[in-house]
């Protein structure tokens, strides 16, 4: 427990996704990859080489892509439908609702380059609304892994789970946080650091920033609990309520709008079951200006020192 701030090599989680999918596809003939011309950006080049017939590229047509995914599942295939998260969820949201979630189709939606991974390309390519759009839909686990290990574990889980899900991946490098051999359990947070003074909750590219912030807080004599909350829905209510009762304050951070995402999901549980002071960090309801994802996360108050400041301010409200 209480590991030092993560300083290891950074990994692109798309590689873990692609490697795992190819490994699973070698023994499961039902697995197909569906994409919208995004062979490169979805890292499906290796899949295409190994299983050329099982790569279904519909071209630049996201509504059709999601519908085709539902049809492939109806026909007994196991489709991983991959596309830039902004287009997959935004352009095809009604298909995700009607064809996937409401129909309960066994389709794995893979949102690539989520959050502000396409930072410099601007807000049209930022996917900072996708938690909000997807987590209101029944039957659809919404998952944002924090590192390559959790990504691989979540893909393996998805392949074995009989139902739809949405995996939200980034291309922004993240260090290893979870142990090798980690088994993904949907709806269960991972306790990455124990602490009793407050709880930091994050997922995706923010978890390692929270770990760094926790190390900095320790230098102030403050012991922060850190929860990696990959599953936004179903949210781990038990871990949130325990955090509220045992640490008395909760700070969330996410590569998403502060409206409707992880922080909102945590706040819903806190308000209903265990009211304590909370602060949500994220994109504050604006369209970002130009910059890399890392730059924008820093700009929006999610550099580790800024997280520390937010934590210290929050602690004054306890």
């Amino acid at each position, binding site marked *: 427990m209480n590991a030092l701030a993560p300083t290891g090599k950074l990994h692109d989680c798309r590689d873990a996704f692609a490697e795992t999918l190819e490994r699973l596809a070698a023994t499961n003939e*039902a697995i*197909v990859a569906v994409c919208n011309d995004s062979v490169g950006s979805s890292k499906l080049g290796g899949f295409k080489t190994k299983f050329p*017939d*099982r790569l*279904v590229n*519909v*071209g630049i*047509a996201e*509504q*059709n892509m*999601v*519908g*085709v*995914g*539902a*049809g*492939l*599942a*109806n*026909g*007994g*295939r196991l*489709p991983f439908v991959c596309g830039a998260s902004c287009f997959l969820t935004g352009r095809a949201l*009604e*298909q995700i609702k*009607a*064809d996937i979630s*409401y*129909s*309960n*189709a066994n389709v794995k939606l893979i949102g690539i380059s989520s959050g502000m991974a396409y930072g410099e390309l601007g807000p049209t390519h930022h996917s900072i609304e996708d938690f909000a759009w997807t987590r209101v839909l029944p039957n659809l686990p919404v998952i944002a892994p924090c590192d390559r290990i959790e990504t691989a574990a979540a893909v393996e889980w998805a392949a074995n789970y009989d139902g739809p899900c949405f995996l939200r991946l980034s291309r922004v490098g993240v260090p290893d946080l979870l142990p090798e051999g980690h088994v993904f359990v949907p709806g269960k947070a991972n306790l990455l650091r124990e602490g009793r003074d407050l709880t930091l909750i994050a997922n995706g590219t923010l978890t390692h920033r929270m770990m760094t912030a926790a190390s900095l807080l320790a230098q102030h004599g403050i012991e922060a609990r850190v929860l990696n909350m990959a599953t936004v829905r179903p949210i781990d209510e038990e871990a949130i309520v325990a955090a509220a009762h045992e640490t008395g304050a909760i700070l969330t951070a996410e590569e998403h709008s502060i409206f409707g995402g992880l922080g909102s999901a945590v706040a819903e549980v806190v308000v209903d079951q265990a009211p304590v002071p909370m602060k949500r960090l994220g994109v504050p309801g604006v369209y970002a200006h130009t910059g890399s994802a890392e730059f924008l996360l820093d700009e929006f108050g999610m550099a580790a020192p800024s997280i520390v400041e937010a934590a210290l301010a929050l602690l004054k409200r306890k």
Partner: protein
Amino acid sequence: MQSQELERVARQIRRRDLQAVFEAGAGHIGGEMSAIDIMTALYFRVLRIYPDQPRHPERDRFVLSKGHTACALYVTLAKRGFFPEEELSTFLQPGSRLNGHPNCNKVPGVETNTGPLGHGLPVAVGMAKAAKLSGAGYHTYVMTGDGEMQEGSNWEAIMAAAQFALNNLTLIIDHNRFQQGAALADTNDIAPLRPKLEAFGWDVSEIDGNRMSEIVPALEKRSERPHCIVAHTNKGHGISFMQDRVDWHHKVPNREQYEIALAELSESN
């Protein structure tokens, strides 16, 4: 089943559909009457189906993309033995699984949930592609409305079907020339449909979609390419005062109209 008998079954389905809409006080009767002959031919002649095993992997697929005409599908499925015909009396009633648009997780024989337009054809493309990948021998049919072809998602799917050479896919366009608010021609006139589909690489048949002798061979036709049947139909077909009247898109007959319509659809006619 031969044409004459299919026509008799279609009349029975029309009568039961009319009754269900009348009793429920809601429905989309015009587009149901235009589509019932085709649905009858599918379920009582063409489709390889297993009503007692609705998820049989080798079953032919039918997707009703114009999901608002669910009542016609419910009547057809019940008559074909997918669920008890008595249940049709629950159509639109509180708690019924027979709501205004079909639900594949509740109603046996429904393949995917439809309702928002422009959804069924992409899903059907996926079904047909799945058969190509797995080697399954089933055929996939999907029916859209003609107004529904204004949805861009259909044209995405039409392109994909041609690219994937899905000769195991048949699209039926119920070309009854009317949409909810007005005639197709006065709204966004996508007719003629044939040259558009042909330009996109499909094989196209044009038939009288209310004439069984033309419907059956078109549905049974196999092609090297994806096949589109432009089915020229009449909205409200079979009921004189509804036919080709746009207000019967979702109007409900009063008692007097109901009796007249029932008489027109009687066995002797």
